[in-house]
Every structure is written in C-alpha cells, then in structure tokens.
C-alpha cells in the first residue's frame, strides 16, 4: 500500500513538468505556431527559477522568475518567427541551442547549492483518507496548478470567443486576417503563454522535483512535451492522459532499475525516448485518413497590406 502510494506520488511529480510545458505548447500550436524551443525555454526557466528561489528563499518567487524567463525567451522566438517571418523550425532550434548555453551561464554559480523544495500541502482531514487521501490532497502546489491550467485552457479554447478566434488563426490565417483579426498579435500572445508555461515547467524541476540545479537537468523533457502535443491530437483532454502515461513510464523504469531486473540501467533510461518514437509512429499511422494538426501549423504568415 505504501509502495503504491509512493509510486503514484512519483508519477504525478514526473508528469507535472511535462503537462505544464505541453499545455503551453498546445496553445501556441493551436494558434498555428510550432515553437521547437520548448527545451531551451524550460532549461532557462529551471536556471532562473532556482536562482530566484535561492536568492529570496521563496519557492513562489522562484516560480515567478521561471515564468518571466520563459516568457522573455518566447519573445525572442516571436520576434524572429512572427516579426521577421523566419522559418519556425530553424528558429526553435536556435532558441534551444541558445537556451542551453544561457542556462549554463546563469546556473554556473548555483551548481552544488541546495534549497528547501516546495512543500506538500496537506489539506486537513481529506489528506488523511486512506490510499487516495495523500495522493489527491497532499501534493505540492505545482501539481494542483497544472491540473487547473489544463482545465482552464480547455475552457478557453472551446468555451470562449477568444479561444475560437485563436483556433481560427491556427487553421486558416488568411481567413482570420480577412475577417479583421490581428493574426500576428494573437499568435504572439499564444507564443508568450507557451513560453511562460515552459519556464514554469522548467522551474518545477529544481524547485520541487530535486532541490538543486544541474546543467542540462531538463534532459529532453521539452522535446517529450512537444511529442505529447502530437500525441494528444492537439486536444487538452488527451494531453492529460499522455502526460501521466509518460510520467508513469519514467517512474516505472526508475523503479525497475532499483529492483535490479537484470537489464542494464541505460536501456531502462532509454525507455521514455523510445516510447516517444513508438507512440509517434503508431499515432501518425492511425491517422492516415487526415491530419488532426492545426492546418496552418508552422507556416509563415506575412499579412497583405
């Protein structure tokens, strides 16, 4: 029983950064922008988030630093890909390369330092319910926030007029422009939201997952978040399922290493990456009838004037 509870807690912790980062990217992609710089924005968010928390002693301010850092990174992307109409794939790659270097530079002074990680909030009485109590009502704030975030995004995309306009930009930017909507401005906001989420997801790693900063600690999570958006068919509901499944794979391989299954640990560590490839192939194959991706995803838009 204790073990089951521990595993579920670990799965939630491993899934949360993926969920937050993928939620932001989902909104950006729904507006028609493919930002491949998630990994770069996350790792800068991780470095700045740790710096913020270490300097002020507050996890909340650390998270805020992460959000601001991710947003600033995404503004570079918006300036390039939206303002200057540069190829989005190349710009996203540049953002990741730049972010990895920048995070090393920012984080260099903090390697080896420790902070007190985000506390788990125990909701009185409810958290004492056997089995599900601690799992549902004894998480850190990020976990609750990530669930609220994806629910909010679902409501925004499907239940508000602004969400409808954002999706219209992603499906046909020429029509949206003809109707008088400021396509580039809407996309800029979507990209900034994506950056804020990626920054927060990155900050989660040193603030709650492990209480210290290591260079390169995102370890490809930004790329897995990108794959999750494809996995979800750009739908928030499926994104939740995907994120928790991937979190489960990650934790499963960690535990399997601990149990000493006899398989070299490197092979187990490769599992999440291999799973991503296999899932991408299976999903793309199942969808040969027609793509569910936003129709204008990744295409350059320069309005006629």
């Amino acid at each position, binding site marked *: 029983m204790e073990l089951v509870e521990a595993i579920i807690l670990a799965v939630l912790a491993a899934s949360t950064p993926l969920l937050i980062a993928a939620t932001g990217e989902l909104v950006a992609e729904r507006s028609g922008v493919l930002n*491949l710089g998630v990994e770069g924005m996350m790792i800068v968010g991780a470095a700045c988030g740790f710096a913020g928390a270490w300097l002020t002693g507050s996890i909340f301010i650390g998270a805020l630093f992460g959000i601001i850092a991710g947003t600033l990174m995404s503004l*570079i992307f918006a300036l*390039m890909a939206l*303002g*200057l*109409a*540069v*190829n989005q*794939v*190349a*710009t996203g*790659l*540049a*953002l990741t*390369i*730049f*972010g*990895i*270097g*920048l995070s*090393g*530079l920012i984080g*260099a002074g903090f390697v080896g330092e420790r902070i007190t990680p985000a506390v788990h909030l125990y909701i009185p009485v409810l958290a004492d319910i056997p089995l599900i109590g601690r799992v549902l009502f004894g998480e850190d704030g990020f976990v609750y926030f990530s669930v609220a975030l994806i629910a909010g995004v679902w409501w925004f995309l499907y239940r508000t007029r602004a969400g409808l306009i954002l999706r219209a930009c992603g499906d046909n930017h020429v029509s949206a422009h003809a109707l008088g909507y400021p396509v580039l401005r809407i996309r800029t906001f979507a990209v900034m939201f994506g950056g804020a989420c990626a920054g927060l997801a990155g900050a989660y790693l040193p603030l709650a997952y492990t209480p210290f900063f290591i*260079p390169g600690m995102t*370890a*490809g999570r930004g*790329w897995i978040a*990108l*794959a999750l958006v*494809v996995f979800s068919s750009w739908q928030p509901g499926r994104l939740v399922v995907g994120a928790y499944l991937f979190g489960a794979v990650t934790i499963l391989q960690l535990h399997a290493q601990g149990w000493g299954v006899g398989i*070299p640990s*490197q*092979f187990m*560590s*490769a599992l999440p*990456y*291999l799973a*991503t*490839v296999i899932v*991408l*192939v299976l*999903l*793309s*194959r199942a*969808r*040969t009838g027609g*793509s569910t991706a936003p129709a204008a995803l990744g295409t350059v838009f*320069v*309005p006629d*004037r």
Partner: protein
Amino acid sequence: MQLVLEKRAERSGTIALVSPLIAIGLTIVTMVILFAILGKNPLLALHAYFIAPLTDGYSLQEIAVKATPLVMIAIGLSLCYLANAWNIGAEGQFLIGAVAGSWIAVKTQGTDAGAWVLPAMLILAASAGALYALIPAICKVKFGASEILTSLMLVYVADLFLDYLVRGPWRDPHGFNFPTTAEFDPVATVPLLIEGGRLHLGSIIALLVVAAAVILLGRTIKGFEIRVVGAAPRAARFGGFNADQLIILTFAVSGALAGLAGIIEVAGPVGHLQPGISPGYGFTAIIVAFLGRLNPLGILIAGLFLALTFIGGEQAQIAMKIPLDVTKVFQGILLFYVLACDSLILYRFKLVFPNRQVTRGAG
C-alpha cells in the same frame, strides 16, 4: 506609423551575399555587451576568441581538427534541409557511427590484424550512421511521424547505448574503472598528416566531402531534384520527382557522413571510445549549415569559423576565466542573427501609415 515586412518581388542577391557577414558583425556587438556584463574586458575577450587562436601553429591545426566533424556533418544536414527534411539527430548518428566503428577496433585489439582495419571501421561507421538516420526517415515516409522529434529522441538513445558499452562490455580492464575502451591499436587509428602534430587524414576526407557536394548539387540531376523539392514542392510534384525517396536519400547520406565523422573523431583526436566524445558537434553543425547558407563552400568557411569559436572559447576560459557556456550562447545568438538577416533576402521593411491603409480599404 508602423514598421512591417513586405515581400520583395525577387530575392535580393546582394543581401544573400552579405547577410552572413552582417550576422557575424551583430553577434560580435552582442558579445561585447555580454562580456561587459560578465565584467571582462571586451577587447581582450574578443582577442582571445578570434585572434589568439590564429597566431600559433598548434591552434591552427586544432581549428582544422575541430572543423572536420562540423563540416562533414553540416554538408549532410544541408542536403536534408535543402530537400525540406529536418534531420536534427546528427548528434545521435555521429555517436552510433563512433560505436559501430569502434566495435572493429575493440575486437581486433591486440591481434595482428592488418591495414584493412581502419577502412573497415570507416565503412561500418558510415553504414551504421546511415541506418540509424533511416529510422526517422522511414517513420516519416511510411507513417508520417515527425522526423524532427524522432531523430532528436534517438540522440538520447544513442548516448545511453554508448554509455552502456564503455561502462559494460567494452570497458578497458586496465583502465582503473574509468568508462572508456582501451587505446586503439595503430592500425585502428586515423593517421596524422604532420608527424607529432594534430592534423589528421580526416580533414582531407572532409575536403573531399565538400568537393563531392559541390558536384552533386551543381552538376547532377539528383542534386537538382533535392533543391527543387525543397524550394518548390509543387513544381517538383509536376516534374515527377519523388519527394519521399529524396527524404530517404538525404537522411541516409547525412547519417552516413555524421557516422563517418564520429569514427574519425574517435579513431583520430580522441583515440578511444568514451562518453562525451562530442561537445555537441551534431547540434553545432546545424548552425554551420545555416551560416554556410546550405552551400558546400559556405559550409567549409562556416565550419572553420565555428571551430575557431570552440578553440577561442577554450583559450578565453584559460586566459580570462570566461565560462565555456559563453561559446554556446555565442553560437545560439549567431544562429538567430543569421536567420534574421536571411529574412531580408526575401522581405524588406516598410513604414506603413494606418490612415492611408483605411482609405485604400474603403476604395
């Protein structure tokens, strides 16, 4: 009043030529600001980065050694990018090439195997790199899976596989438990060009690859098809060019070149297989490909320039305690500026006055 982009009637040849230079200029200005923020003398830092490595023979050789893998990988990537196929997993193909070639070196160690060892290593490494690159290519062509994500995921897999081999079955029994194979035998080592120097045969191979790419792109039908499929996919379809086949081909070629670069690095400057054989060559090569405008000769120059920043970065770290990460920041900023300047080949800035726009809309 508003500043907006406007499409040019035709691409600007002048800007196409000078844009890499503008980009380098802007990068250097940005670096001066960054050095100042870090509290280092910008002029001394720039000297350490760009001038000092050019002043002694050892560093010059070292630049050529570093440029060798960058140029080889970037040439392959440029073919992919020209054909609009996004291979960003060259780092993984590099590692798999290194592993495959090392297999022969490890198995023949201490035997009296002859001169066939090195050529066999090179061929096996290129084949393994090509096969590894074919995984994302086939997933793309057969199943429509994003080659960007699959090729990148396979980098992590390759890295872990190499790690397993050098910590497990291939570890040097006399290596004090360090994760490395034993030093390769002389027959399994890339020969040096200058006795006692650093320059090795790999640099010659890289030059041959550049020459081959010049001929492929400029003088053959296949090269023409690659360029058309990327630049004008519709025209290519009407022309009956098979885009899927070109994705497979360009991925295989770029994988082979990355694999070859991998074994040359291991059997050359490094001398044995160990984790961390690449300081991100596969990713830096993406910058080299774009900075070189996806043109073989441009890539040769860009590769030497990026190699200079690696060596310069090391010297700046030793001489001025400038962190090595500055080099990565520098490379990222450079790629931003290159892409931004390239945008001006197709577009130009224009001032728009909103009120005039309204009149036009009404009329």
